[in-house]
């Protein structure tokens, strides 16, 4: 795990942040999940919305979250720096979280990783090595933003990434001929009535 430095200095300066009306509506929805006066409980959800709107979490966004939830800013900083899924530095439009834990590795995640790293330019794609994503039966797997792309190899990874680059959204899930984690090429059992 990379060391997270408190208040990184090598990030672009974002002077102000405010939620767009659409995101603000979602923020209010998250806050409404908790009893009145306990709005601070919504902090992780609201931070996530801020990150979705901005792409990453500049300090201005954390301050805005603190203001909305009536928390001390430091309490928000603590949470945002604790969770690795909050990004305190800008990242590419698509975050490639490549699983390199044993099952994926055995199934060739090294090649997938290499393909991802070749594509990573910091603006469209960023790569992050992650621990088990819990989809070992479809190894190797890469999480791209919110979706899992499974059963990858170097070629299919490039194909998926090219599609993203063209602005398309390739179909998530297995990139081989297989329905979720069912056998390749269609069912082999329980075919009849």
């Amino acid at each position: 795990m990379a060391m997270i430095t408190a208040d990184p200095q090598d990030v672009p300066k974002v002077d102000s942040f405010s939620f767009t009306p659409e995101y603000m509506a979602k923020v209010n929805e998250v806050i409404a999940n908790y009893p009145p006066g306990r709005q601070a409980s919504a902090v992780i959800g609201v931070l996530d919305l801020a990150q979705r709107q901005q792409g990453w979490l500049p300090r201005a966004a954390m301050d805005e979250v603190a203001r909305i939830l009536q928390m001390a800013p430091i309490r928000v900083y603590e949470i945002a720096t604790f969770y690795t899924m909050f990004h305190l530095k800008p990242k590419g439009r698509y975050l490639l979280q490549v699983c390199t834990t044993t099952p994926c590795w055995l199934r060739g995640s090294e090649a997938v990783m290499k393909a991802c790293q070749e594509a990573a330019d910091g603006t469209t794609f960023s790569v992050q090595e992650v621990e088990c994503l819990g989809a070992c039966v479809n190894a190797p797997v890469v999480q791209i933003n919110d979706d899992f792309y499974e059963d990858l190899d170097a070629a299919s990874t490039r194909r998926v990434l090219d599609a993203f680059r063209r602005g398309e959204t390739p179909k998530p899930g297995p990139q081989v001929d297989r329905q979720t984690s069912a056998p390749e090429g269609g069912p082999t059992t329980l075919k009849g009535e």
Partner: protein
Amino acid sequence: MPIVKIDGKEHEVPAGITILQACEIAGVEIPRFCYHERLSIAGNCRMCLVEVKPGPPKPQASCAMPVADKQEIITNSAVVKKARNGVMEFLLINHPLDCPICDQGGECDLQDQAMAYGYDRSRYAENKRAVPDKELGPLVKTSMNRCIQCTRCVRFAAEVAGVEELGATGRGEAMEITTYVKHALTTELSGNMVDLCPVGALTSKPYAYEARPWEMRKTESVDVFDGLGSAIRVDVRGNVVMRVLPRLNDDVNEEWISDKTRHAIDGLRYQRLDRPYVRKAGKLVEATWDEAFAAIAAKLQGVDGRKIAAIVGDQCDAESMVALKDLMAALGSPNVDCRQDGSKLQSGPRGGYIFNAGIRGIDQADAILLVGSNPRLESPVLNARIRKRYLSGKCAIASIGVPVDLTYPVERLGAGAATLRDVAEGRGSFAEKWKGAKNPLVIVGPGALAREDGAAVLALARSLATVRDDWNGFAVLHTAASRVGGLDLGLVPGEGGRDVAGILAGAQRREIEAVFLLAADEIDTSSLGKAFVVYIGHHGDAGAHRADVILPGAAYTEKPGTYVNMEGRVQLGQRAAYPPGDAREDWAILRALSERLGKTLPYDTLDQVRARLIVVNRVFAALDRQSPGAWGEFGKAGTMSDEPFETPIRNFYMTDPISRASRTMAECMASRQQAAVAAE
């Protein structure tokens, strides 16, 4: 009450406490880093492990586990010892072994406990982690490599000081204690974090590399920088006050002191008056005591007592005040005043000018009304106590005065006397709460009293007070350590006498010919006109600059003195060092002067002066007691202006001659100003 067996012995302990507290009651010592009696329980250092039966088959953190009946607690088994050794080894993995250059050395919890639980060698061959130091302002020096992440400082900032500015960012090996955004802590209590830090991560910046704890002579004394009279310990090396630390006193300051109390002491080294001066041809020139006394005697020769006046400063001890009072009486002067700020408090019934409920009373109050008071600046430790009461959730707090940030929310009722009248006459929602409260406490601050209509405000506030046998809810918040003592001794204008404003006006009109200033520097010295001014005090401040004769006195660390705090508690301060040069204790100066003036005061020793104190007021007979004062009529109903109540303290860090001479306080002030500019 549950009965628990601790190390084979049965003890009956109160229900609801933790195992660590039970062990403390039983006299069994448990090592700890993160646990602190006055902070919430964190349970993250794991040093306090004990075996508990029945319970899981592994050691438990005793600080976070409640006691239960028939529990068996084992603190001295091999399992416990091994577990604590393991914890200590982990703590030391990333701790630098820089004790020889660490200011905490000699009074470090980690150092002490490593003696009992540490291994004699390290099994850790990897690199230690390095953490950047943080900037926490001019008082707290950080060395974050040493931090063991007990989070005491984080909890102190959030809970006691009420400024949520510190936190633990990151996780695992990357965890850091930080403000995240670079800025100095905006609390008046930051020095206490240094005391709380069990290692050398937070140390005192002004005291950095100054001294080692075992080199210093420790003297227990009383603080004079505000009216609270905090219990302090003065550490002296040679004749220099190196540092001031708080002493435990649950009745007054618990274990906190303000940054001014702790760090203004470097002011004791600068701007000192170390020999008498006499003004000759417009210039102050050094003189001997004999010449100084002769100059005064010559000037006072044949002057009518009514044309002589005396003003008492805010940090004076009772001994010097009684000597001044007796001297002025002997000279036939009724013009004595101990209320430099022009407060309209009277010397009448004691209940009218003390914090009757006591500082402890705050813990019982269920409604608090602050009238013209900003306790955060006037007495930060008292403010922390009110905050503690606020956190209990059992107390409604409202304020009348200019809006200020007190570190806890208060209901703002209004700014001036009209609002106070509304509450007194039962108008408004807070008045309802006030009526329903069992122990309402009205705290009247200097912002409401040090003004023309102060007596009328006082009378109105009196009408709000609930006075029963077991509760007196009238409290005056004093900023001056000498004030209650002065009022107890009756240092107020006598029959036909003048108060401070009258003395200054009289001096300008030549109706007052001679003025004694007993360490009084907070008056407008430019309005002393052509009066002959004798300054008795310890610092070359405003009073000394205007003086015609300077008699060098002793500061609070340099004389045994009696001080009465705002709640009327008589406390003894001790001499920790000697006054510089020719300076002497103030009462002795007045005694010597009285002889030259032919009005010899009837005491030659400190004991005789203290006997005289008791003659003047019986309260001086009992030390360290607090009870509500005699109740009676005080204040004077009258018209009140619409001026908002505002605390007279503009700058917390510079309120008296010592703190004005202090470089540390100047740095604190600059740091605050910078922060204010940056915020705009």
